[in-house]
């Protein structure tokens, strides 16, 4: 598979006077069609890392390559066309006055002819199942719906990469489900590369690979199974423990021998009922 994103020795500092850089010598590569989750505590540099990919943050050192282009002043807008980004606060990224105006915003920026635009806006909105809300104002939408509109805004631009910068963190569980389901479906259909920055275990579980950031450095990397098997350390890494893991550690506290490797919720059920029937 082709590498779609390569970061080479990226360092970044918000202010010259900061003694601790936001990013310290980070290198990574992401393959076309991968789903990557980046986890880590607040201030670990994960959002900054995501922002270097589309040039919202210019690294003080290192090289960013996206889709074969080395990020520079000249091609920054080409790269932004390839990378769609959904941010944390649903309200603060809603530019248009209605759903369709907001989805059209990015297309307007690219100077897409109006006839094309109408069609692309409509199909993007249908993709995220918001077609009944075309004329609605943001004030009348739920957080999850607003985030789906933001995704539609990204989808309409037909990017190759979509970055979710804690896009589900301000949503209720239902909104979170809605958004994740939407991203999953779109990723499959359009063969997108997804980078999600998250604290949410379910969101991270969707990934092919999880990267763990700490103090501006990349400290761990692995499949969800590998990372989740760290158990109690997951909280230190900036994730909430999955339900099955919480149960496991409670059982361990009561003196019950539990398997050391990571269990999905189904695996947990399987293990539980076989445990009892064996006796």
């Amino acid at each position: 598979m082709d590498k779609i994103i390569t970061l080479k020795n990226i360092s970044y500092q918000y202010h010259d006077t900061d003694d601790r850089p936001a990013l310290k010598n980070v290198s990574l590569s992401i393959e076309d069609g991968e789903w990557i989750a980046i986890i880590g505590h607040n201030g670990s540099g994960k959002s900054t890392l995501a922002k270097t990919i589309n040039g919202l943050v210019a690294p003080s050192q290192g090289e960013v390559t996206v889709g074969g282009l080395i990020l520079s002043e000249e091609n920054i807008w080409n790269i932004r066309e390839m990378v769609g980004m959904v941010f944390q606060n649903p309200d603060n990224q809603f530019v248009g006055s209605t759903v369709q105006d907001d989805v059209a915003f990015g297309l307007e920026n690219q100077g897409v002819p109006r006839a094309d635009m109408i069609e692309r806006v409509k199909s993007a909105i249908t993709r995220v199942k918001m077609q009944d809300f075309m004329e609605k104002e943001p004030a009348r939408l739920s957080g999850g719906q607003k985030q789906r509109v933001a995704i539609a805004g990204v989808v309409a631009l037909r990017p190759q990469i979509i970055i979710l910068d804690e896009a589900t963190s301000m949503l209720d569980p239902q909104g979170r489900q809605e958004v994740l389901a939407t991203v999953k479906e779109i990723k499959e259909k359009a063969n997108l590369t997804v980078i999600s920055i998250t604290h949410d275990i379910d969101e991270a579980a969707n990934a092919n690979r999880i990267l763990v950031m700490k103090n501006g450095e990349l400290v761990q990397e692995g499949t969800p199974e590998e990372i989740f098997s760290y158990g109690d350390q997951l909280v230190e890494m900036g994730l909430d423990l999955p339900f099955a893991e919480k149960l496991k550690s409670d059982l361990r506290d009561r003196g019950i021998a539990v398997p050391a490797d990571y269990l999905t919720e189904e695996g947990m059920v399987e293990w539980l009922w076989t445990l009892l029937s064996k006796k």
Partner: protein
Amino acid sequence: MMDKLIFGRYIPGDSWIHKLDPRAKLLGTVIFIGIIFLANNWLTYLLLLAFALTAIRLSTIKLSFFINGVKPLIWLILFTVVLQVLFTGGSTVYFDWGPIIVSQEGLLNGVFIFCRFVLIIFMSTLLTLTTMPLSLTDAIEYLLRPLKVVKVPVYEIALMLSIALRFVPTLMDETEKIMNAQRARGVDFGEGNIFQQMKSIVPILIPLFVSSFNRAEELATAMEARGYKGGEGRTKYRKLDWVSRDTIAMLGYAALTVGLVVLRK
């Protein structure tokens, strides 16, 4: 309480007036406010009133909405009218006491000024009740276009207007939340004398101010991520269509102007 403050107060509908191009409506309202100063006798005011009432009728919006529009300004209007009545001299004087003179001309002028205010409020209320704020910004952008020649950033002004309008409900919600948070900490809004009341606004304004700046920054980042690089080279999703209906409305205004010129003294 907050709902009343939302300006625009657009009432969705499907009437002839609703369907008019926002440019026609905006231009029409401006023309109306201009030509109202042509009126200087009963006949001309009657003509304007008939015109306004016909327009209101066509909008199928209840007259009470328009009368409500006058209410917040009624003291200002009455004050102006009273000044006009008390200090206008004339040939037929009813009452004369030092600088205060009540004359026939003054009374008549007072009534005319009252009519003028009410008519202007009626027509501008008609504009805001039947036009989405968003369409209105589109119209403003279009009508300001000639100013591009003198380097006025018309496009940016329109975008600013539409973003401002879009954030009105968001900031209202936020104000409500902050007020509740302050109430929970024992702040009493609307209590005490005027200074105490003003002081209690400060703990609302400061967090609101701070969060608005945060919002602005995040919005700017989001806009940049979505490829916004200024008005150059952008296409437009919204399109305004000028149809025969709009030309008819403009002709209506032309006829009104001619009527006023003919009927005025």
